């Protein structure tokens, strides 16, 4: 099919992985590539923690009366699942792993702008994660939902809200510092000739993501402080019995929360642009439209938070404004989808595993985005709000979009990170399993939501059982699809065939250096003389 799995012999004699040995050289490293590995290890752990919680939930929902766990445990499981997946897996996934590894490589730099700050970010992340895990292991978990709605969280919940909120508070600073680092790096460290409009689209999306990080993360930090003050010292911010207003919390939370969901999917969009270009041997159609749509999404994402509150008693005028902007933010997403699809036209398309994830992403993201329009529509939201419809919708974006993008990216850059290739056959099997399992898990949930099944129910009326069993069956396929890559990727890091600097025949500076790259990334500072994705110009 392609030169993909041709063994090219030997690894470079010295590279960033073998430049030094011992745990200290990892835990005190300032090499962005090693820090990426530190993040990769941490978030993989968190991914399977969150996945275990989801497994318990799906098992419990096989029976209407709950087959496995008490409602109080179920509530802790969906809270754990949401908090872990959003704050400790998805938010750092593409930015902190792939972004860290790739940004300097893609711009021809030696490292990020502030390497020590970069390491500090990881330690802050780990501190936040540890405090959070303490609330789960020592504190018996937290049962407020990942949204921490007051006054349930501040006054009524008797689970371990304080340490969970503290964990979220701490980990937010990791994202702020990472965002800061990336913005400065992209502004100041680009190689000669690498102008803004020659940047790979992955960098445009990382840039937009970083802006959201530094603007939205402080708001969740402040909100968590207010929550802790009210819970611990009874300051009256949110509980009406203390003179507060519970709706204020929702405004603060979603002012962070909606930009946050774009933090999760924008990086995946960047990955998809790279994959589509490489595996169809084409420059991304409408490059500047795709680039600017990332910035437009980042900007508009701050103007839509009120659509989470259409049924909270929000004023009619607020409802109208937020509905309008929620439709507006759909347009740049649509532009991306059309441009990716048009890129395939007259391409030379191959179907290695990363490309399967990319094509799957476009399909699932399209469906996730279109169902978002239902929720942006004031009248329609009145019925489907807080039902399984919304659960299905955001999983299409977060899993069908963000996780598929992350897996596609990991498979694509794995030979760059390790110098070795995994089994393409197994990788394709896993990609297909993930796609099929995903559709089967979350497709039925749209129907459940339309029929009125509320989210966050540990037990449910018996007429919903068939669709819930289908969903749980799908989840078991999805789980297999997630475990298989863990096995063959770890195997390949040691035993996979050595594939050389550019196994995919891709464009971009990261493919011009050795795999794995040397610690300083490039022997000599590269000079850029062409557009991004300059396929078909006779230079390959």
């Amino acid at each position: 099919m392609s030169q993909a799995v041709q063994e090219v012999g030997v690894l470079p004699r010295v590279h960033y992985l073998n430049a030094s040995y011992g745990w200290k050289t990892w835990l005190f490293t300032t090499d962005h590539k090693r820090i990426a590995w530190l993040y990769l290890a941490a978030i993989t752990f968190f991914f399977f923690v969150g996945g275990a919680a989801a497994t318990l939930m799906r098992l419990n929902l096989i029976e209407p009366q709950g087959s496995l766990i008490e409602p109080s445990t179920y509530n802790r499981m969906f809270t754990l699942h949401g908090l872990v997946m959003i704050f400790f897996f998805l938010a750092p996934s593409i930015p902190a792993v792939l972004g860290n590894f790739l940004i300097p490589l893609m711009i021809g730099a030696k490292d990020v702008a502030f390497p020590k700050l970069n390491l500090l970010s990881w330690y802050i992340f780990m501190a936040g994660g540890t405090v959070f895990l303490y609330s789960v292991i020592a504190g018996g978990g937290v049962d407020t939902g990942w949204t921490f709605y007051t006054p349930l969280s501040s006054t009524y919940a008797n689970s371990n809200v304080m340490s969970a909120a503290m964990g979220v508070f701490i980990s937010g600073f990791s994202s702020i510092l990472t965002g800061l680092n990336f913005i400065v790096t992209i502004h100041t460290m680009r190689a000669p000739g690498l102008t803004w409009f020659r940047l790979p689209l992955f960098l445009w999306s990382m840039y937009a993501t970083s802006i959201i990080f530094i603007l939205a993360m402080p708001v969740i930090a402040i909100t968590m402080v207010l929550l802790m003050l009210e819970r611990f010292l009874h300051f009256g911010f949110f509980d009406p019995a203390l003179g507060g207003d519970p709706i204020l919390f929702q405004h603060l939370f979603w002012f962070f929360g909606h930009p946050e969901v774009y933090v999760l999917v924008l990086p995946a969009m960047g990955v998809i642009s790279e994959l589509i270009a490489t595996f169809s041997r084409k420059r991304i159609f409408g490059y500047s439209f795709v680039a600017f749509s990332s910035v437009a999404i980042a900007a508009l994402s701050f103007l839509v938070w009120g659509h989470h509150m259409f049924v909270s008693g929000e004023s009619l005028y607020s409802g109208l404004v937020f509905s309008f902007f929620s439709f507006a933010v759909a347009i740049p997403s649509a532009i991306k989808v059309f441009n990716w699809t048009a890129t395939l036209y007259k391409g030379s398309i191959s179907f290695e595993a990363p490309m399967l994830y990319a094509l799957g992403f476009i399909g699932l993201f399209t469906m996730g985005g279109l169902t978002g329009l239902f929720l942006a529509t004031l009248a329609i939201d009145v019925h489907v709000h807080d039902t399984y419809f919304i659960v299905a919708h955001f999983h299409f974006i977060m899993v069908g979009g963000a996780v598929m993008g992350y897996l596609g990216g990991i498979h694509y850059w794995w030979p760059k990170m390790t110098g070795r290739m995994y089994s393409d056959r197994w990788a394709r099997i896993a990609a297909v399993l993930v796609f099929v399992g995903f559709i089967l898990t979350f497709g039925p949930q749209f129907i459940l939501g339309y029929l009125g099944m509320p989210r966050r129910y540990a037990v449910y009326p018996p007429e919903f059982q068939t669709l819930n069993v289908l969903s749980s069956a799908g989840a078991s396929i999805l789980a297999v699809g997630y475990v298989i890559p863990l096995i063959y990727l770890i195997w390949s890091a040691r035993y996979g065939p050595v594939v050389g600097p550019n196994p995919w025949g891709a464009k971009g500076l990261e493919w011009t250096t050795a795999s794995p790259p040397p610690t300083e990334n490039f022997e000599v500072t590269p000079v850029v003389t062409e557009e991004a994705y300059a396929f078909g110009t006779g230079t390959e």
Partner: protein
Amino acid sequence: MPLEPSSNFTQASSWANDWETLFYFEVGIFIFFSVLIFSLILYFAIKYRRRPGNEAAPPTKDHLPLEVTWTVVPAAICVVMFVWGASLFIRNGLPPAGATEIFVVGKQWMWKIQYPDGRRDINELHVPVGVPIKLTMASEDVIHDFAIPAFRIKKDVVPGHYTTLWFTATKTGTYHLYCDQYCGTSHSAMVGWVIVMEPAQYAQWLSGGGGGGGGGKSLAAAGADLYKQYACSTCHDTGRGPSFVGVYGSTVKLTSGQTVKADDAYIRESILNPSAKIVAGYTPIMPTFQGQLSEEQILQLTAHIKSLAKSDADGRKVAKP
């Protein structure tokens, strides 16, 4: 009382039909664009797959007319959905005048329903078919959400606020009632039934036939008792505080120079946080009743004050003193 839903999921309110029309329009949009994108991807993936003779692709050229097309067309469709959804939402925003008012109090983890004449329900809402019903809702503790899927409606029930929800049921039957806002341990047990009855049957049920929570005093009468019990009359009937006769629904002048409409929310606030809005000509001497009165008792007091605004036995409007 064991109940079986006569119909799990149907269109049982006037709004449900309008809702379905718009929903299926959006389902149509969803199907059209999903099929379009999936087919294009499949077609291109097969037609332009890499094979001998297609190892290299021709360079890409940007195409402005295409970009404009796929910006403007989705934008236009979004405008249609926005306007349609918003106008439906606005049209159904306010209950019609004269809607029958029923009170809902949510607390962990039950729904308490109070009918104006004093009948009470737990986790069951009885309503007559074909009559507009307005629910005034309050929460004793955390945020709940009163959702009736067969009517395609829901609204959060927020502590510290009154929220309202209204509907006209169009089909008799028994329908699911859920709490849709996560409210703690037994959230998924905070469910019940909405029982839509023929008006004659409903009248009979209201007057005490057919089980349910016991009758007792009307809301206003219970409120009058509370009014005595909490010695409200010490001030409000002696001129130290403003009189309540004819107040409900009127416009009240405040010391700040502003005016406020004396509705349920204003009365509730004035009981719990009396110094927030002081009636012109009075001093802020009233103590707060925060923590002393439950949401139900506040509703009863409000009903009592409301009853003082109504015409007296001779049909004349009671004059303000």
